[in-house]
């Protein structure tokens, strides 16, 4: 109370500047920063990645003898590290070319499945009339608040033992033991479950913003709900779908935790992130391959980011700005 009362006492001028919205003030201050400063920040932030790239291209002896900057006095570059990491990794590690394929085999279904479900759900929440629609939608959104870590143990139990319910001495099987643990489908399902709430939310906002007339015109033209969904909504929601697909794909591609828990016992199916860690822990051998391996694992995110930049912005704006 006392702090609130103090504000008017500071006088007219102080109120004037305090009234300026924070966003505007931040903009005014930031607009004065010279471009050179921004470039300096960009360079500073890029140096570690650049150093990693340089190191990945140097022979093992040079990597050990000095930092990446010694490249200027001792310029020798080789692709040997990439060759070894991809095809001949030391003792028992999966070749990175295989891990790369495994990562794709996890990330692509881990993106497609939630989007397919989320599109249908978003359409239903936005344009189909059914009882309890509002509360179901709120329920789905509330799932966003559930942390991944909290559900790992129950999920693992569900995968490896199914679900049973014991009532008064007799046990019912709610879900049979499907032995999903350490199979790629375990990871797909986990990513689907954790991706769905946000996917439904983003796509719902976009699809709900499509003009009502289109739906009415399609109904008169003879389309049923599936026809409207397939022929009108899906083509029109492409930008939103693309935006979410990028986020989901990168999240799944870069994921370590879920793969570690549900898939790490299965060496032949494990993705890049798991193999990257295994490379370090194998008796000091192959550390010279780490920079190259790290670069292999970020190739896909980099390609996606640079080729689909415009969708990032649209995705962030989804729902707030129409069209």
């Amino acid at each position, binding site marked *: 109370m006392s702090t609130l009362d103090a504000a008017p006492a500071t006088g007219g001028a102080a109120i004037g500047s305090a009234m300026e919205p924070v966003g505007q003030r931040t903009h005014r201050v930031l607009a004065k920063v010279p471009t050179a400063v921004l470039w300096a920040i960009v360079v500073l932030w890029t140096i570690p990645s650049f150093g990693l790239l340089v190191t990945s291209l140097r022979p093992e002896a040079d990597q050990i003898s000095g930092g990446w900057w010694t490249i200027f006095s001792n310029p020798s570059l080789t692709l040997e590290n990439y060759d070894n990491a991809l095809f001949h990794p030391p003792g028992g590690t999966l070749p990175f070319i295989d891990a790369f394929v495994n990562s794709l085999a996890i990330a692509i279904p881990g993106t497609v499945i939630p989007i397919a479900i989320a599109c249908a759900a978003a359409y239903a929440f936005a344009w189909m009339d059914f009882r309890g629609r509002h509360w179901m939608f709120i329920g789905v959104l509330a799932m966003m608040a559930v942390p991944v870590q909290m559900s790992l143990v129950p999920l693992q139990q569900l995968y490896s033992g199914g679900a049973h319910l014991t009532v008064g001495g007799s046990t019912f099987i709610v879900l049979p033991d499907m032995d999903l643990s350490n199979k790629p489908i375990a990871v797909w399902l986990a990513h689907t479950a954790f991706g769905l709430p946000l996917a439904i939310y983003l796509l719902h906002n976009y699809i709900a913003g499509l003009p009502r*007339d289109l739906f009415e*015109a*399609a109904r*008169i*033209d*003879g*389309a049923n709900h599936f026809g409207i969904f397939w022929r009108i909504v899906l083509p029109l929601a492409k930008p939103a779908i693309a935006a979410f697909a990028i986020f989901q794909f990168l999240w799944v591609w870069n994921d370590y935790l879920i793969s570690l828990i549900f898939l790490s016992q299965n060496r032949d199916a494990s993705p890049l992130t798991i193999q990257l860690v295994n490379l370090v822990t194998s008796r000091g051998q192959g550390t010279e391959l780490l920079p190259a391996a790290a670069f292999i694992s970020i190739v896909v995110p980099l390609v996606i980011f640079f080729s689909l930049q415009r969708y990032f912005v649209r995705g962030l704006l989804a729902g707030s700005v129409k069209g």
Partner: protein
Amino acid sequence: MAQVTLENVNKVYDNGYHAVHDLDLDIQDGEFLVLVGPSGCGKSTALRMVAGLESITSGKLTIGERVVNDVHPKDRDIAFVFQNYALYPHMTVRQNIGFALKLRKTPKAEIEQRVGEAAKLLELTEFLDEKPGQLSGGQRQRVAMGRAIVRRPQVFLMDEPLSNLDAKLRVQMRAEISRLQHDLGVTTLYVTHDQIEAMTMGHRVAVMSRGYLQQVDTPQNLYDRPNNLYVATFIGSPQMNLIMGQLHLGATPHLVVGKHRLDLPAALVASRPGLADFDDKKVVVGIRPESLEDAGVETGAPEGRTIEAVIELREGLGSEVVAHARFDGEAPQVEAAQRDPDATLTGEQGVELVARLDPRTSVAIDQMARFIVDVDNLHLFDPATSLAIR
């Protein structure tokens, strides 16, 4: 082709808003009927009920011989043209027009042929492979029409299809839609808020206000014989002048408006037996702007047919002069009466008269002018009910 009949149709929304009251409307086979009224009068709701986009709360809707209250829109054999066209933005013009046929599993060759015919009729052939976003407003409007006619429906339903076009294009499309409807002979229900569209396009016009149907008639009859004050002031531009007057029958039937006396022709009195109930009572006198003429232009202005008013504004249009004048009389409070339909009209001193005068007129601003009133074409209304006295 089919006849469309609405019997006692009501629409009450979930929130209790009663949008359409007991609507009775009979659209003949092949007729072009225009529903007109201000926004919020229920005309679009009525149209959407015919289309099946809104449920019917009570009453009966028949298309052809079939009661269609609970029939799905796609099975009503209707086509709908939306105000903002509702074209599918990701489809080409060809796909947009052919969409309904494709959903009906029409053979490809037939779709191609019928889309081609529709496009030719609407001069869209060269745009068939473009997307709606690349077209102008008028072209989009035509694509929307194409989408409707390609189905060969029994009924066209149009919801203010011209309101998003500029004035010039609107006039052109007005004629085009009328011609198309005439050539195809499809029963059409057309909704607009623009009385010019209603008057020029409709075979008959239905005027709605506040969810109630006010009058249905041919455009000329609506203009000449409005049922009530609402229709009288809604149809016609500039709108009808209204003055409170005192009716006196007897040997020389006449009205007293302000300080002036207007003799009523015997034929007019004879044709309206209802006037007998208003002897020595107040009535609302309606005078169309063209029923006022400058006494200086016509020769031999007879006594008992003129009123005087001070000119406030003179607008020369070449073919005519529109004069706004202040008349010293009582103005009925029509708007107040429209807010509360049961209210009796009360007067307020000072009436603004609008007159369409011969261009030779010499009336000038701030001068007193004498107008001859065309007493044969006076309209008389009951101030208590707003209904025309017949």
